[in-house]
């Protein structure tokens, strides 16, 4: 006999760092239906290719999103490089890998903090973000920016990391591991956190596949796909396992992401050892023509960078399919039947990046 409440959730809502809107239909506090609305952040930057040449567009590409910035830049550059048949110097590829993995650590820590905040564990949020600041400092040391690096360019990278810096970073990461372990314990073993994560928002393997989930969202449902295994950048020379978890609930998604932080540290360590000494960048001649779908693994999952050139300096089309866009249907799936209190947690467990999604 319960009546149903109809309330708006977002776009302005304190648990949502970015605007997204849901029409929630609630029974008590059980979500019966959730219809999403996006478009609050839509800028239309794909159309900017008509105004910026393919080299300048790198600056736009990395501003698709401030969190995934680096890999957006890299993905775009790689796509262009593929259409032009440019072989990027290995050192540049290794540096891209290292920055990319650092981005992953920073993004996952940021996500952990936001997740903690969503389930009301403020000190855990603070702790995660305190750790994240160290990574940001490392970024600033090597790229000159905290969130947007501007180091990618077609044909390579602009800045280098010397061996001392790399050693220093490895040491910082080693120190960080201890704190990370304490954090991990709180996320994975604490009773109250477990009540908020375990069994909440289960996405089965079949559903994950059907709804086209990507990244940690998919891997935590037991599907073993990680586009880094395609071997772009330097990943073909690095050894790592795809991290999965079979359960598919919020807890599994947390577990997968935390393990990926440790994995990323290992990848950086390997890369720092193997990094060859070549030049950083090639001089690019000519204009891109032809098309290419570049698949890169963002912290949030597989991103697709599609470029289509016509032999002039302006591209015909750039399209970015970001992981969050692919994960939205999964989010709606897990939202059904959850509690209102779970809504922020579940929105966060797909690790949404709305500004990526809407471009």
């Amino acid at each position, binding site marked *: 006999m319960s009546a149903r*409440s109809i*309330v*708006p959730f977002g776009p302005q*809502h*304190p*648990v949502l760092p970015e605007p997204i809107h849901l029409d929630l239909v609630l029974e008590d*506090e059980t979500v019966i239906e959730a219809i999403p609305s996006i478009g609050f952040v839509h800028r239309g930057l794909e159309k900017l290719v008509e105004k910026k040449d393919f080299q300048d567009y790198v600056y736009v590409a990395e501003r698709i999103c401030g969190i995934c910035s680096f890999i957006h830049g890299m993905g775009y550059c790689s796509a262009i490089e593929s259409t032009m048949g440019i072989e990027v110097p290995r050192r540049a590829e290794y540096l891209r890998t290292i920055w990319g993995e650092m981005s992953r650590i920073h993004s996952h820590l940021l996500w952990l903090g936001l997740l*903690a*905040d*969503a*389930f*009301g*564990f*403020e*000190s*855990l949020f*603070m*702790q995660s973000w*305190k750790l994240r600041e160290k990574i940001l400092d490392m970024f600033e040391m090597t790229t000159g920016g905290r969130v947007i690096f501007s180091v990618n360019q077609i044909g390579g990278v602009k800045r280098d990391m010397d061996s001392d810096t790399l050693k220093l970073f490895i040491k910082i990461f080693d120190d960080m591991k201890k704190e990370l372990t304490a954090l991990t314990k709180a996320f994975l073993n*604490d009773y*109250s*956190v477990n*009540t*908020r994560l375990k069994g909440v928002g289960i996405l089965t393997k079949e559903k994950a596949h059907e709804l086209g989930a990507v990244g940690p969202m998919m891997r935590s449902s037991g599907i073993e796909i990680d586009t880094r295994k395609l071997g772009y950048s330097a990943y073909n020379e690095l050894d790592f396992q795809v991290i999965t978890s079979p359960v598919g609930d919020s807890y599994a998604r947390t577990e997968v992401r935390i393990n990926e932080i440790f994995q990323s540290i290992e990848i950086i360590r390997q890369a720092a050892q193997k990094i060859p000494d070549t030049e950083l960048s090639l001089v690019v001649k000519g204009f891109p023509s032809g098309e290419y779908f570049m698949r890169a693994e963002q912290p949030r999952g597989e991103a697709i960078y599609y470029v289509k050139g016509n032999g002039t300096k302006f591209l015909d089309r750039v399209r970015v399919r970001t992981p969050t866009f692919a994960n939205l249907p999964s989010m709606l799936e897990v939202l059904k039947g959850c*509690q*209102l*209190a*779970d*809504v*922020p947690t579940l929105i966060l467990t797909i690790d949404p990046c709305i500004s990526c999604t809407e471009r």
Partner: protein
Amino acid sequence: MIKIVSTVLYLVFAPVFGGLLAGVDRKITARMQGRKGPPILQPFYDIFKLFSKEAIVVDHLQNLFVIGYLVFIIFTGCLFFYGGDLLLAFFAITLAEIFLIMCASSANSAYSSMGSQRELLQMMAYEPMILIVAIGFYIATGSFSVGEIITSQTSAIATTPGIFLGYLYILTIKFRKSPFDLSTSHHAHQEMVKGLTVELSGRTLGITELAHWYENTFLIGIIAIFIINATWWSWIVALAVCALAYFMEILIDNTYARVKWKVLLNSSWIVAFGLGILNLLALYYIK
């Protein structure tokens, strides 16, 4: 005479005490999170600011209810510090809370109303334990009257340790601290936005904050009367216990995720049963 003095002292100093407590709380919380934190006097700055802001409401009824909330919270505290009837004090504070709930739902706003429903749920969760506290005092000391409770020969806690712990448990709800800050939270990021207080701003928010300080003083007073007996040193012990209890609340606030409403309801009722009712049974058995 002493009764009137203590009532007046409460009226005047409860906000000061409550505000300082909030300030210390925020400072300690910040330090626990590795931050420097605001100045101790920050809550006072906040409340003065709130009273100087433009008053906006969604519905004029809000003003009525929010004042009702304040008045009855103060009334409860006065009743308590006057040495009056504990059970009546609990009834009065319930009335005050109901005013707050009506205030929130009179705004007819989504998050405010949802907050009021949650607040109601919280009340339902802690109500059994609150009543058991009063019953425990009655059985332990033979009276509902605070005046008689604090002059009894032995401390109430000697025979009601379970009830004391149960009270501390629900105190987390009353202080609106994690894991039980469902209806409105001191922390910003909540699915309820600010729950109950979403539609309160400026003066009305200031009033709720003030009422909250009065209420906290009263609630801590109840911790104290568990300890206080006819001897003078029991007052000092009581002070220490209150401080420790509050510190524990801050610690718990910082080491728990916010639970969901079912956990809140179930656990509070189970605690009321496991600690409260069993303690009462034991009391009957001793007698």
